[in-house]
């Protein structure tokens, strides 16, 4: 739903900003968030709910870490790699973080291209974003297999509290699932953009209504969120 004005002739005066405008919007009829489509509003609310999911996961992890009786393994040692004979703590995680943050950049560019109706560029940038995402998941798979080969299991590990492995696999796994879903979603939307579905008014999936370019931005919201969550996981799990 675009922010169109069917009665543009007698359209209301421009809406004031600031606190006053905020109050007016909430007191108005029809919509609280003026000019915000249903899909976008829905994604924001969903992300709020998902924030609580990750929040509970992370708070649960922190409580366990503080209450467990065994010592907690030292993350920067566990996640270190030997590269060309040099010992580099957290190097893989640093690269993963870099990749994911870069993907947020290409995603933002894709949204911009979509609103300029540049189909090819949009689709290309979305595919690049998806590739960054897939790389991230790939590196995560590498990290998982490395830890597993070193003897880390959900129920125990060689260095200390069993909860280390449990929390690690659960939280990164849950986040990795989010990234994977995002990659799939990006590819689907990229294909639709490429094919021109949003110009031809072809009926979309999930809505049985014809889609709009805005779906690129909505996908982007999700993607940035997954990225942001990673920053918290990075800070709380790897750096602490």
């Amino acid at each position, binding site marked *: 739903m675009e922010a169109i004005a*069917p009665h543009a002739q007698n359209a209301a005066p421009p809406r004031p900003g600031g606190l006053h405008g905020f109050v007016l919007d909430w007191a*108005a009829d029809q919509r609280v968030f003026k000019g915000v489509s249903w899909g976008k*509003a829905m994604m924001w609310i969903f992300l709020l709910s998902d924030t609580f999911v990750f929040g*509970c996961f992370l708070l*649960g992890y922190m409580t366990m870490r503080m209450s467990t009786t065994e010592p907690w393994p030292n993350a920067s040692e566990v996640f270190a790699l030997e590269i060309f004979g040099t010992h580099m703590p957290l190097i893989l995680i640093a690269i993963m973080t870099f990749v994911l943050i870069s993907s947020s950049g290409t995603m933002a560019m894709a949204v911009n291209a979509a609103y300029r109706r540049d189909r090819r560029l949009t689709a290309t940038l979305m595919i690049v974003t998806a590739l960054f995402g897939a790389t991230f998941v790939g590196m995560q798979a590498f990290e998982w297999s490395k830890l597993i080969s070193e003897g880390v299991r959900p129920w125990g590990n060689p260095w200390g509290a069993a909860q280390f492995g449990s929390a690690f696999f659960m939280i990164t796994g849950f986040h990795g699932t989010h990234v994977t879903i995002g990659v799939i979603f990006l590819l689907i939307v990229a294909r639709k953009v490429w094919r021109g579905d949003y110009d031809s008014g072809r009926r979309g999936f999930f809505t049985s*209504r014809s889609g709009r370019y805005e779906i690129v931005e909505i996908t982007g919201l999700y993607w940035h969120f997954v990225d942001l969550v990673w920053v918290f996981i990075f800070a709380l799990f790897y750096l602490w």
Partner: protein
Amino acid sequence: MTTASSPLNGFPDRVPPAEVEDVELYHAKSWITRWVFSQDAKIIGIQYATTATAIGLVALVLSWLMRLQLGFPGTFDFITPAEYYQFITMHGMIMVVYLLTALFLGGFGNYLIPLMVGARDMVFPYMNMLSYWIYLLAVLVLVASFFAPGGPTGAGWTLYPPQAILSGTPGGTGSGIILMLVSLILFIIGFTMGGLNYVITVLQARARGMTLMRMPLTVWGIFTATVMALLAFPALFVSAVMMLFDMLLGTSFFMPALVEMGELAKHEGGSPLLFQHLFWFFGHPEVYIVALPAFGIVSDLISVHARRNIFGYRMMVWAIVIIGALSFIVWAHHMYVSGMNPWFGFFFATTTLIIAVPTAIKVYNWLLTLWRGDIHLTVPMLFALAFIVTFVNGGLTGLFLGNVVVDVPLSDTMFVVAHFHMVMGVAPIFVIFGAIYHWYPKITGRMLNEAMGQIHFWVSFLGAYLIFFPMHYLGLIGVPRRYHELGPTSFIPESAATLNAFITIVALIVGAAQMLFLFNLAWSIRHGRPSGPNPWRAASLEWQTPETPPGHGNWGDTLPVVHRWAYDYNVPGAAEDFIPQTVPPSDTAATGEHR
């Protein structure tokens, strides 16, 4: 903005122009997409309500079995202690989650929100449909656990670890607890899909002129409860996932090192308290997730059937919102006996008691609405009044239990069972009954039979008191909760057994009355008195649809335009004793409340 008298789009008051084009509706092409895999919120609402009622009947039958055991211990040897625990667990969980939550939000939410805010449908009909089917799957998984080897879980509806996944608990090491957790996870996923729909429909898809402060309180209640559910269910989701891992992968999130059946269990270092925090961070808001829709609906029932505007509408809205917010910071009042820093106990007792303030405001406003009202003692009104009485009763014992020193001795006694059945069991169920009697004419075009309704009401209302009121006393003399059989005790007098037998007999009678209600529902579809579009002469939008029952797209060709709040009853000078929300101010001699 223009002044009240200058014409804008042909309307004398200030109704802003449409901001959004009329939606593209999904049109069902076959019988299946129309009635089974329907994307119409009204059908989905009915599907939700039917499924919830069906599984609720299971919970009802379980309560009979438990009561038979408690009333006549030793008589029914097919009820073993293990089974008693399973009955308790399934009864509690079904009632709270699969019946009340699903019925209020999925059932009434779907049916009423689009009609009450003047939308053609929910904003994402396809997702809404998925929401129902996932809910149905969750229910089926739950039902499957009855037939699983070892039976359903018997951990109590709170599913506290460690015992929930230990071998001494029925279903603890088998598939019972797994199916329960999977079913909860499915429920939450399905609910999220529906919940996003309800929230966005209220926020972004209202009719012209329908401001938030003109919405009926029913919508406010359901809306706030849905927002709360979207924020509270994540905690249950996370705890279910973690417990599933403890069970299946051998992690120790919640499991400390312990000796099980003489052997050291494979777990160590986990925190059972963490589960309790997560569970109650969901569990307490859950109480209000079923209470707030009840508050909203009751306000509307009282206003319609007492022919008076609701007293203090704005206060009522803010009370709903404030209760919703506060209920996120009181959860540890369920954990006083789990051991906590006294300062925390102090904090949580204080916040708990503070919630009583907005709640009391609501109760006073209901009473002031009734004051000098033109009260019609219809069946919906009777149920609404019964709700107020029962809720006040349960709320008062809540004040007792909210205080640490009072709760500690009363915890885990029948007093608690009496309290929560009053406040979140019986009271919301009364509202559901009242709401069904009230909106059934809109859904079917026929009235429910009044005589059967009166019998149903009086038996249920008096019966519920006879069942649960004595339980306060049983709790005070020390009868514990979740006990299969009391056995010989020095402190429990002989008369307690007589009382228990009495309660059981009443419970069976009340149960029978529910069968009468179900019969009434089925019978009246064909044989009820035709109701016409607006039998209660109500002002809110859902009664103004061009067709009854409302057709596809709800509103015919043109969307309604709203000019006033939903509570213009007995406006001085008006021709009739109610003014529908769609009537512009100039069409009546009196203007009513159309701010």
